[in-house]
């Protein structure tokens, strides 16, 4: 603090932000500009579509989300697709977490073989595009090991995301003070017990934010499995469009559905996180 004061005294005075920046950052102006920009984009695309002679049929979209018929309430195709996407993502994420933990522990094991295997795995995964990895699992490993498209999809997503998740684990584990290891060891715990009861429970706090980011990332990249026609949100979107030609409405809707899910996830986890910090 004393330092900045002397700097202010000796050096040039700390510059005020320029006037235009002050104006642009004031709340009403910022909101207005934001609204104008968004409005222009929306208007531009709708006007463009109009010029193309696009026939908007938004009224036909809700039935793909849900419907009330004589049989009562029914989920629409997009909702079913959403559930499939969530299921696919949850299964893949669980497997990715498991793989990530194993790879992280291998790297931290101090065994030369262990870290060599882990590093080779990570380099391999990081340098293959997701789409190619999917093709490898489906078209190459699929026939060899008898994997159906669903299993191939789960494996692809899990393996791809396990690379980053293992880094998250590694950072989370390293963030726990060495003293915790020493205390655990000095009461006679094995390395496994120290991880399980002392280290990992403390790493969770460090890992929660990046893990949420990774889950969001995984949900989004799960769309790629539509290229091998696994029934999920994006595939269903494509199918609806090929039946109805409403590509604009459906893609907007699908994008919105992904956004809503990932936003709910982020908000939910940050709420959880706050609870965590209050508890301790």
């Amino acid at each position, binding site marked *: 603090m004393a330092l900045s004061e002397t700097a202010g005294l000796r050096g040039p005075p700390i510059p005020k932000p320029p006037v235009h920046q002050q104006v642009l950052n004031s709340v009403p102006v910022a909101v207005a500009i934001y609204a104008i920009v968004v409005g222009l984009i929306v208007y531009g695309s709708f006007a463009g579509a109009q010029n193309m002679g696009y026939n908007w049929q938004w009224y036909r979209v809700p039935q793909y989300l849900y419907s009330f018929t004589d049989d009562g309430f029914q989920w629409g195709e997009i909702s079913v697709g959403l559930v499939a996407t969530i299921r696919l993502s949850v299964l893949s994420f669980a497997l990715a977490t498991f793989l990530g933990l194993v790879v992280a522990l291998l790297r931290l094991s101090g065994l030369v073989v262990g870290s060599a295997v882990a590093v080779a795995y990570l380099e391999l995964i990081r340098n293959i595009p997701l789409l190619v990895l999917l093709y490898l699992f489906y078209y190459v490993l699929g026939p060899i090991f008898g994997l159906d498209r669903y299993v191939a999809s789960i494996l692809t997503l899990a393996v791809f995301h396990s690379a980053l998740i293992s880094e998250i684990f590694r950072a989370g584990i390293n963030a726990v*003070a060495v*003293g*915790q290891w*020493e*205390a*655990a*060891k*000095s*009461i*006679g*715990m*094995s390395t496994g*017990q120290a991880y399980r*009861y*002392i280290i990992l*429970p*403390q790493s969770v706090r460090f890992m929660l934010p990046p893990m949420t980011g990774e889950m969001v990332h995984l949900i989004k990249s799960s769309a790629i499995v539509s290229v091998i026609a696994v029934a999920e949100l994006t595939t269903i979107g494509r199918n609806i469009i090929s039946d109805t030609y409403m590509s604009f409405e459906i893609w907007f809707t699908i994008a919105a559905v992904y956004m809503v899910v990932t936003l709910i996830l982020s908000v939910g986890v940050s709420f959880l996180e706050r609870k965590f910090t209050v508890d*301790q």
Partner: protein
Amino acid sequence: MDSQPIIEARNLDKFFGKFHALKDVSISVRQGERVVVCGPSGSGKSTLIRCFNALESHSSGTLVVDGIEVFEGSKDVRKLRQEVGMVFQQFNLFPHLTVLENLMIGPMKVRKVSRDQAERTARTYLDRVHIPEQAEKYPAQLSGGQQQRVAIARSLCMETRIMLFDEPTSALDPEMINEVLDVMVELAETGMTMVVVTHEMGFARKVADTMVFMEEGRIVEVAPPDQFFTAPASDRCRMFLAQILEH
């Protein structure tokens, strides 16, 4: 008093890379003996007692603790650590567990004691360190002195035969030092074998059977407290004592 040594170190050397941290150190501690180790910063006190529970592995020499030969890669390390408790300068309590859970986790997971039994033991030792009312709190909610007493209780819950202390009071505010030292004095009265690295010379005079002075990785002086404080043999030790007794 049993005169059988419970810790027997012969010609220990310890290198950190090229740095020679322990130089030909030999020391033996009898069962029930209270040894206080002092010496300037960097003289290898921590390194020495960390060798006793295999948190550091010595580079050469022999070390037998409670009948178990300690060496790098030994299978008996965990057995050894169940007999040798350690109290750290920074407490190192488990922050995600309550005080009671901190005390119970070792007995339950390592000694496979039942939850009930572990809880009973934990409450007994919390009483011993005079904070039975803090059982349900988290470490961060306690004062430094209370945290260190929990750490002592945590070691005691393992029913260890030897307790090592690495400057247990030097991270504490002055007004909390005595509550921790009192607990350690009481512990000494139970006949526990203790090796204590500390500069609290009042405590040393009160409980030590043997004083050890280290410098630059060597044990320079070993003497009973009377002799150690009144007529230290080496000049360096005399200077060190003069320095810390000034305060």
